């Protein structure tokens, strides 16, 4: 089993994506998807030396719900800021010190930060483990740092043992 599916989660993702793209139209297509689900993780094995282990999958559902809700509310906020008077904004480059020590999780956190409007993740410093974030409007940078750490980083650390 280990030999056949070295990354069960990646295999599941590949298979699901394949099923969604082809609309799972026929058995032949699903079989091809299964073949891909075995081949792709094996071929990309060298790129992922040691992926984090998923220990609390159910927390991921909650994080995803929080993330989805944040996208909607924050989009609305940015939309208002963009059409409102610009001099009220105080854009800032902010360094968010990270507690996690995993490149994949840092990438995930950066992506979440970039997708929730108002913030874009610019860089992950892997010497100091600092996430450089640019915020469109951050009158209180420390509050934003706390928000990112509490809302996204903590759950990520709980979902993957880290």
């Amino acid at each position: 089993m280990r030999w056949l599916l070295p990354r069960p989660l990646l295999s599941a993702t590949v298979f699901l994506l394949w099923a969604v793209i082809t609309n799972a139209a026929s058995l032949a297509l699903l079989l091809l998807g299964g073949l891909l689900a075995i081949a792709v993780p094996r071929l990309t094995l060298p790129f992922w030396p040691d992926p984090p282990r998923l220990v609390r999958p159910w927390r991921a559902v909650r994080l995803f719900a929080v993330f989805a809700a944040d996208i909607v509310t924050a989009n609305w906020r940015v939309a208002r800021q963009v059409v409102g008077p610009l001099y009220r904004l105080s854009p800032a480059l902010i360094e968010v010190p990270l507690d996690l020590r995993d490149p994949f999780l840092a990438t995930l956190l950066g992506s979440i930060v970039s997708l929730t409007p108002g913030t874009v993740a610019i860089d992950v410093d892997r010497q100091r483990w600092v996430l450089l974030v640019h915020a469109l409007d951050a009158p209180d940078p420390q509050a934003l740092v706390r928000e990112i750490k509490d809302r996204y980083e903590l759950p990520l650390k709980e979902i993957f043992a880290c």
Partner: protein
Amino acid sequence: MSTATESAVAVLILLGALFVLLGSIGLARLPDFLTRLHGPTKATTLGVGAMLLASAIFFSSGTNEGISLHELAILFFLFITAPVTAHLLAKAALHRQTGTQQSDSGTPVRGRDGEKLPHPDKTS
């Protein structure tokens, strides 16, 4: 297709278009590179999300059989690629020091002059 689904599709398309428009307005209005980056990266999340949802509803409730799931895949790929684009653009901007200050030692750095954006009445 019933009137209810039709109006739901129409509302979602309009909502999506509105947010994409707002993203473009942001791109046009905001003053420097890094703030401008916020407009387009946002439009992809909610704007395109709403349009894809409309598409999924439309093609699932049409005459053709089954439900349409392609949109989920599009959304997934968009969500994993959009941050990469934003990240690369922002990094290139920092590299060239386009109109913003670089943070030095752990202290947060404000926008252009460490201040709020210039008031239109005061600057020009």
